[in-house]
C-alpha cells in the first residue's frame, strides 16, 4: 500500500509540513522499554471489578523531555499496533508503524517534543495480556485473563506517565483504537491533558463495528486449535486468526483503494482452478492473514476487539454532558473514504464539543485509502498536527499552563 495515487495533493505547494518531510532525518535505533507496576497486593482494579497485577506495559520514547516537562506527547496505537511507533529496532528493515509522523522535523517533532508510545494491556506486544504468565497458576492466562476496556488501558498508561514523572501531557494522539484511548484520556484525566488528537475514530462503537469484530472472534473460536483459549504450547488457532485478520483488512480499505491496488487481476495466468486463490485480492488477504498469525496472539485479538466493542465514551449519557468543562483542545481528523470509522462518528465528537463549548478543530481529509488513511495520508496529517501542536505548545509555554 505504498503507491500514492492522489493527483491533486492539497498540500503540494509551500507547505512547511511538506517541506520538512523532504529533509527528514531518522530516529535511528530505538528500543522498547518495559514498566511493571500493580504488584500484588496492590493490583489494578479493572472496570469489570476484576483485579490484575502485576502489570507490565511496553513503551518507547523519542526525543527529550524538557526541564519544565511541558513537551510530552503520548501516542497510542490501533488494534494490532505496538509500542514501536518510530525508528528502527536493531536488525529490522522496517521502521515503527507511525515513523512517517514521529521523528525529527515530522508532525510529532522529536526535536521539540518528547514522544511516548504506549502499548495496551490485553495485548501481546510486551504488555500483560492473555498470553502472559498468570503468577497464580504459572501458566499463560488464556481465558482467565480479565475483561479489559479502553478505560482500563488508559488507567494503566496513567501509571506509566506517572512513572515517567510527567504531570501534564501536551497531547494525547492516536488513530482508530488509539483515538479512543486519546478521547478516554481526556475524560478520565481532564486535568492532565492539554490537547487531544483523535484520528479516524469514534466516541462509541456502532453495531456495525461490533458486528465485524464479532465475525472475527467467531472465526477464531471456531478454529479447533483454539481450545477455549488454552492453546499455548500447542498448535495455534492460526486459520481462525487469519480469517479474522482478513475481515479486518477488508474493512480497513475502501472500494476504491481495492480497485486501485488489485483490480480484477489474477495472480497468474491459470484460471478455473477450483477455489484456488486466483485473484490478487485473495492472495493479498491470505498473505496478510497468515502473516498476522506470526505476530499476534488470538486471545489478545479477542480481548482487544471486545474492549473496542465495549467502548462508549459517554457511558450512555449525552456526549456533550461528559465533555462539559473540558479545557483540552481537540483536533479531530476523519477521512472521507473511511467506512469502518465513518466521518459522521468524528462529526458527532465535534458536535458534542460545540455543545459543550470545547475548543475544537475538525478536518475531514479527502482520501481514497479508507480507514488505513490514518497511516498513509501523513502529509495532510502532518500539516494539521504540526501546526496544532505548535499552537498548543506556544500557549503552554507562554502561560505556563495549557488551559485558557
Amino acid at each position, binding site marked *: 500500500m505504498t503507491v500514492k495515487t492522489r493527483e491533486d495533493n492539497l498540500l503540494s505547494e509551500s507547505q512547511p509540513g511538506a517541506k520538512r518531510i523532504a529533509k527528514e532525518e531518522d530516529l535511528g535505533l530505538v528500543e522498547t522499554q518495559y514498566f511493571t507496576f500493580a504488584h500484588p497486593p496492590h493490583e489494578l482494579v479493572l472496570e469489570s471489578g476484576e483485579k490484575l497485577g502485576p502489570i507490565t506495559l511496553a513503551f518507547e520514547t523519542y526525543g527529550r523531555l524538557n526541564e519544565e516537562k511541558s513537551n510530552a506527547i503520548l501516542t497510542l496505537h490501533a488494534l494490532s499496533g505496538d509500542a514501536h511507533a518510530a525508528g528502527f529496532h536493531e536488525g529490522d528493515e522496517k521502521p515503527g508503524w507511525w515513523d512517517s509522523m514521529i521523528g525529527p522535523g515530522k508532525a510529532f517533532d522529536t526535536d521539540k517534543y518528547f514522544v511516548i508510545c504506549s502499548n495496551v494491556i490485553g495485548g501481546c506486544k510486551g504488555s500483560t495480556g492473555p498470553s502472559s504468565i498468570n503468577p497464580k497458576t504459572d501458566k499463560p492466562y488464556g481465558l482467565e485473563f480479565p475483561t479489559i476496556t479502553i478505560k482500563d488501558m488508559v488507567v494503566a498508561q496513567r501509571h506509566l506517565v506517572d512513572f515517567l514523572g510527567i504531570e501534564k501531557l501536551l497531547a494525547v494522539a492516536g488513530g482508530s483504537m488509539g483515538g479512543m484511548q486519546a478521547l478516554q484520556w481526556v475524560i478520565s484525566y481532564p486535568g492532565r491533558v492539554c490537547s487531544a488528537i483523535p484520528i479516524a475514530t469514534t466516541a462509541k462503537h456502532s453495531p456495525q463495528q461490533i458486528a465485524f469484530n464479532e465475525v472475527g472472534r467467531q472465526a477464531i473460536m471456531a478454529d479447533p486449535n483454539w481450545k477455549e483459549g488454552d492453546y499455548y504450547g500447542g498448535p495455534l488457532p492460526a486459520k481462525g486468526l487469519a480469517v479474522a485478520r482478513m475481515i479486518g483488512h477488508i474493512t480497513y480499505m475502501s472500494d476504491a483503494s481495492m480497485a486501485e491496488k488489485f483490480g480484477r487481476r489474477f495472480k497468474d495466468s491459470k484460471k478455473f482452478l477450483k477455489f484456488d486463490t486466483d485473484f490478487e485480492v485473495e492472495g493479498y488477504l491470505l498473505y496478510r492473514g497468515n502473516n498476522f498469525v506470526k505476530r499476534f496472539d488470538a486471545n489478545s485479538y479477542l480481548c482487544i476487539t471486545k474492549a473496542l466493542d465495549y467502548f462508549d465514551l459517554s457511558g450512555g449519557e449525552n456526549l456533550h454532558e461528559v465533555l462539559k468543562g473540558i479545557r483540552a483542545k481537540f483536533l479531530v481528523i476523519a477521512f472521507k473514504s473511511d467506512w469502518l470509522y465513518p466521518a459522521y462518528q468524528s462529526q458527532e465528537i465535534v458536535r458534542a464539543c*460545540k455543545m459543550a463549548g470545547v*475548543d475544537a478543530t*475538525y478536518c475531514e481529509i479527502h482520501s481514497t485509502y479508507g480507514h488505513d488513511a490514518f497511516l498513509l495520508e501523513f502529509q*495532510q496529517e502532518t*500539516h494539521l498536527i504540526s501546526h496544532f501542536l505548535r499552537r498548543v505548545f506556544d500557549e503552554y509555554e507562554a502561560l505556563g499552563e495549557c488551559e485558557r
Partner: protein
Amino acid sequence: MNVRDDKLEYKVILEWVRENSSVLDLGCGNGELLSLLVAEKKVKGQGIEIDERAIYKCVERGLSVFHGDVDTGLSEYGDGSFDYVILCQSFQQVREPDVVLKEALRVGKEVIVSFPNFAHYRARLQMFFHGKTPVTPSLPYEWYDTPNLHFLSIFDFIEYCRKRNIRIKDSIFIGMNKRVSIFANFFAGVGIFRLSRYPCPSGSLKCLEPRGLRLFLRLKYRV
C-alpha cells in the same frame, strides 16, 4: 473574497468587534479575518469552512476551525453562545440565507453580514448595455464558476431585515475602496451590516433605523 474592498471591509469589522469577545466566523475561508480578530482584538475565535484547502490554512494560522457546511453547522450551539457571528462575503454563498441568518441571530448576540451589492452601478451598466451577467471587483466571478448562490442588493437586504423584523444596528458601505455615504445601493460594491438579535427598545432614537427615517433612507440606500 473580493480583491479590492476587503482591506477596508476587514477594518470596518475590526472596529465593530469588541476586545476579548467571542466570534464565530461562518465561511471563514483562509482565516484571514479571524486571525486578524484574534491578533488585534484578542477574540476567542471559531471558524466554520467547507473547503479543505482553506482548513489547512486556518490551522496554519493557529485557528480553531470546523470543516463543514455553514447551512447545517449551527444547530448545536445554544442561544447567544457567541458575542458575534460573522458572515463575511459568505452570506450570498450559503444555500439557505434565510435559515442561516435566523440561526446566526439565535447563536450570536450580534451578527455581522457583508456581501457584494448586485445593484452596484457597474453591474447595472453591464447588464443594461451588454446584456451580460456582471463581472465587477466585488462580483469577480463568471456565471459559470461563481461560488455565489444568491444575488442581492443592499436595498434587498434592508427590505429583508424590515420584513423579518431584524434590527440593523449599523451599516457601512464600500465602493472603490472608500466609504460610500450616499446612494449606497448604486455606488457601493459591498454592504456591511451589524445586526442585533434583540429588537429595538421602544423610544430609542438610534433604533429608528431602518423602520423610521424613511426619507433619509431613500437617499442613503435606494437608487
